[in-house]
């Protein structure tokens, strides 16, 4: 059972299609690097849990187009006005949970879709992209999380914003320090030893796989599919190890930023995490990123004492809750604006700005309070070739997944549909 042949066989026989490391791919990369190549496309999702302040975040819904007046909540983004669009009218029609800002944001799934179960999810848009864009980078995708309890920030269940092909949660890196190390910690181990360690890791996987197979005997269907998560987990590590193998001898990129201070929270944390995302793109470590941002600690870092959930219910009293909500909007916009600055200022090898090759979505499944319609959606970056600089109003309750599908198509991932999509969002086509 321990021969590599068997393991490969196991990988091939799995239901999910796993891209095995093709030996050529490394050679191809090296060959290709000699000729100038168009910079690759990237996809970035930035999600915040508790939504925004409806009254001051959205442009006037009655005046769509390029000449819209910048709403107060987006004011810090004014200098980028020509380079992003706000889309109104989008929603995930199956969403019912007023405290789940991120669980189904990128999936559009119906939590009740599976009879006999009370929770179901499906693949998220980033993972659809990662299956194609992730083949040639060190990490197929990166999932980043705020360094705090996701529930306090209104994100809902999930280990990150990403969900895999079978709708299971994908783990994420918590906070800037962890993310930094994942990306840039140098492996100074000699190559032979690295190979030996990989072999050891594979033996570990073979051992636990053997154990899982022994356990699988005699299980019913439901339990087998539960155990499949374990198999899938091991498969994911296998895929990663194969990638590691492919990358042995290719040194980790130099970190374009210093190691973050431990203990950053809230505003500073988001700022540094944006720098890390930028660095990950810049070094082409990955082309697909999601970041589930902290909201609870963001408030604390602004000296706001209103509890985050309470803040989103500002309608009953306005006053300090509304104030907190609006200050949150402003800070988030400021941070995003800074991130866009850096995307524009950083150049690709061909001299074009990174910004031109990134497709970026920023938003939440929650608008305000428990409102799950007109999900706040800001799209930016030149990567997907969508219409920028506009306040776009889609017909009411257009699937949010139509926007995701449009972005996927724009970056060259021609999925037929995504989630509950009914087609691309024609209002977004430039």
């Amino acid at each position, binding site marked *: 059972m*321990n021969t590599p042949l068997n393991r490969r066989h196991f990988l091939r026989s799995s239901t999910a299609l796993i891209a095995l490391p093709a030996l050529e791919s490394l050679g191809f990369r090296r060959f290709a690097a000699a000729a100038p190549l168009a910079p690759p496309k990237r996809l970035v999702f930035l999600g915040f849990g508790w939504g925004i302040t409806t009254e001051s975040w959205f442009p006037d819904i009655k005046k769509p187009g390029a000449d819209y007046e910048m709403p107060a909540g987006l004011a810090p983004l004014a200098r980028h006005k020509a380079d992003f669009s706000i889309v109104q009218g989008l929603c995930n029609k199956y969403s019912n949970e007023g405290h789940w800002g991120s669980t189904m944001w990128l999936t559009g799934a*119906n939590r009740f879709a599976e009879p006999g179960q009370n929770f179901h999810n499906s693949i998220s848009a980033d993972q659809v992209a990662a299956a194609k864009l992730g083949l040639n980078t060190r990490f197929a995708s990166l999932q980043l999380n705020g360094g705090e309890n996701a529930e306090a920030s209104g994100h809902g269940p999930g280990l990150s914003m990403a969900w895999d092909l079978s709708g299971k949660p994908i783990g994420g890196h918590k906070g800037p320090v962890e993310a930094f190390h994942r990306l840039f910690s140098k492996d100074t181990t000699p190559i032979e030893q690295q190979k030996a360690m990989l072999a050891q890791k594979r033996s570990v996987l*073979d051992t*636990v796989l053997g154990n899982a197979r022994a*356990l699988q005997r005699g299980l019913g269907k439901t339990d087998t599919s*539960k*155990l499949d*998560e374990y198999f899938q987990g091991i498969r994911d590590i296998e895929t990663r190890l194969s990638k590691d193998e492919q990358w042995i001898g290719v040194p980790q990129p130099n970190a374009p930023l210093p190691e973050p201070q431990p203990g950053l929270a809230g505003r500073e944390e988001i700022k540094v995490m944006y720098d890390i995302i930028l660095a990950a793109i810049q070094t082409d470590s990955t082309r697909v990123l999601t970041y589930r941002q902290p909201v609870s600690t963001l408030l604390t870092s602004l000296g706001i004492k209103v509890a985050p959930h309470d803040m989103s219910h500002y309608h009953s009293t306005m006053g300090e809750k509304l104030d907190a909500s609006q200050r949150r909007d402003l800070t988030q916009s400021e941070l995003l604006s800074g991130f866009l600055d850096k995307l524009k200022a950083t150049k690709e090898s061909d001299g074009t700005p990174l910004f031109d090759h990134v497709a970026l979505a920023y938003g939440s499944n929650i608008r305000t309070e428990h409102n799950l319609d007109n999900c706040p959606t800001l799209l930016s970056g030149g990567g997907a070739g969508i219409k920028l600089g506009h306040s776009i109003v889609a017909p009411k309750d257009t699937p949010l997944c139509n926007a995701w599908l449009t972005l996927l198509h724009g970056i060259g991932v021609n999925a037929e549909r995504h989630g509950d999509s009914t087609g691309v969002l024609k209002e977004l086509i430039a």
Partner: protein
Amino acid sequence: MKPFVCLLSALIFAQPVALIAEETASRATMNERHKAFLQNHCEGCHGAEKQKGKFRVDHLSFSMTNLETAEKWQKVLNQMNSGEMPPEDEPQPSRDAKADFLEDLSNVMVAARRSLSDQRGAITMRRLNRREYRNTLRELLGVEINVSELPSDTGTGGFDTVGANLFMSGNQFEQYQTLGREALTEAFEWQAAAGVAKKLRYEAETFTPIMEKFVAHQIDARERARNWVKAVEEAAALPENQEVVARLKKESKNDAIFRRSWEKIPGAPSPRTFGFDKKGENDADLANDSLGAGWLPYHQYYLRQPALDRGAYLGIQTLHPAEINANYIELLVPFDWPVGDYIARIRVAATDDAPPERRFLDFGIHARTGRVMATHEITGSMEAPQTIEIPLTLTRGNAERADRTLFIREKGSWDTNEEGGRKRSEALKRNGIGPELALWIDWMEIERVPNASKPKPPGIAALSIPLDDKAPAPTPQEVHAALERFASEAFRGTPPPPNYINDLMALYDVRRKAGDKHAAALKETLSVVLSSPMFLYLVEPGSDEKRRPLTGLELANRLAYFLWAAPPDAKLRDLAGHGELLQPEVLAAQTERLLDDPRAEGFIKAFTHQWLGMDRIDFFEINRALYPRFDTATKLAAKNEIYETIGYTMRHNASLRELLKADYVVVNRVLAHFYGISGVKGNAFEKVSLPENSPRGGLLGMAAIQFMGGNGERTSPVERGAWVLRKLLHDPPPPAPANVPAITRLAGKVLTTHERLLAHQEDPQCASCHRKIDPIGFGLENFDAAGQWRTEDSYQATDANGKPDPKTKKTWTIEAAAVLHKGPAFKDYFGLRDIVASKSDSFARGFSSALIEYALGRPCGFSDEPLVESMLQQSEKKDLKMREFIRALVSSKEFHTK
């Protein structure tokens, strides 16, 4: 015990499956009387003739027996909740008719969701959840490690034992490996240090000369500063400096700032010549500060106290602790002391004049972050101080200085800077000195207790080979056998497959060949066991179609993870292995034994926390300016009161009714003081009788419960009402619907809470739920946001700058009288409590459902109604005694069936 057999047959014969299905169907069905509503308000556009939006309701089945129908009704509900249907320009239903329709539809929707997600008794195989994983390592290796990096396993709404919601991922697998390795390292260190005894005492009077020196320094520095100021002023007064001085004065806000520019005044001397050197910053700052001699009177007051030759007082934070620290005493556990069991001891007294609220001592680790671990009331006097003992465990997680520095401090004296500052300035205003000194410390001591005589934890005992490299490494045969014994122990008695042990052995060999010593290779190999599926999953093989009874070992696992959240011990496994556990009387006796064991706390805490929705307690902080008494220690005690009370009722097999109303509370001294109740004798939580007419006693009287029903600042009758409906009356309101238009017109108005909430009655979308929720909340308004009893409340609007505007302040006497929707009226909190207490049958039903879900690891569906009924019947015969529910559940067919 016969009931098991009887019950089994009763279940099988008395409840034909069809009946259950019928029952389910009727709950997930809209009442026919609503046909008219649809005909009158919907079918015009969504009927046979027109199908606007391709949606028609005339064909819509009233029974939501499939997902498709349920989704269509969900759409109806969403459209009506958002106020879009019926359209504004169409005739509108009356407010009450719409509210009634919405109420029914919301409830039927909940029933439909529940019925459609009913697992019909099928239990999905589950992995150990986060806390079970921690406990299982603890039982196996004798150490407790921090598992907070793992996902919390909550969030989908159910209990964290529900297998279907317990996921696994590649990341997590690696975390298990890391944590397993950590646990093994910790365990190996415990074994290595088993016999180590250490003791260290800090005599508190060590501080006295430090304070004396500091006071002398303050007086001297003040004198020097005065002299420097005098010299600067003399220079400034020189006629030739008039111009420059005038300009500098104009630029400076005050004299101190003016003096910072001494260099520009010809003739003014450098502060350094007076001994002020601020190391590169402006020396004048140091001189200016010294002039004020901050807190000198307080420090001098300190030195006037008696018994300074024998001890020290715990005061307030005056200057930065790096300068002088009279606020807390710290004790660093030396870095070379190993992991293990420790005891901290403190000899302490309260001063003669200390008021009752200031006779409490906080103990914790790392004063700067202030995590309070224990709080003791101090009853010792200056003549006869007392010695407090606090047991604690230090692990590898306590390696850093901050994590091994113990501290003691007066309770709540410095939980936050604002709060400490507030207390300080209040006292200063009162007496010109600062808060009076209330606690005196003789000494503080830390001792490591050898644990060599304790039996080895089963995992370590199973290995029985050397765990370090001092002895010669064991032979491969010995390692092989050790791995097999360890895996069998880790897999809770299931023998590991032979191939698996061979694979492990190969891993061990590879590590050894790669240069690892025995101990390192062994640890690495064992960590694989701790991330293997047979360790991580509670396995009950069987097909989906054919249910089968559990084996003895499976039953032992189910029982132990239910009542301990930990694996079965040797005794239980022994009984299971011999088949005796399957005998009802043996099972009953083991159930009692498990409930009596301290490990039952693993069940009580986790179950209570989730059942009562206690996560809200940690969602927000109290506003300390408004509720200064609800300090960190009090909040902790209030939270623990809930666990301790449920634990008490379970230990003493009290009636579940006592959770609704009781003539006693289970509190410690901290909470008794907060409640104004006397009679606590020991230092832990204990039962104390209440005076007549006390609002305390039962869940509703608990500070933490009422705290959850607010936001730390104001109360929320809605949160409270919904909680009572959900948790006590088993009549949960449907989840807060999405997309209901917010009521904004009252914002900024100065209204009583009651007046504000009346707005809920206007819109039928709101009224459909709030007419049930809000009256209950009104009845609890006598509890403030910290759970203290009050008779009036007030509200202030905020001005344009977000500051409360005192001109708008409105104060009112609380009217707790209300009428329950379709129910009786009550005139005050006590009336409401009596109504709630009279519904103990509903409470018992909710409790039973929660137990079923928690214990079986699957949602409690409609198909479980017979089980709930039988649990109720059995418990009612015994006055709803807590353990009867458990006994009934454990002896049920469901508990014994895969």
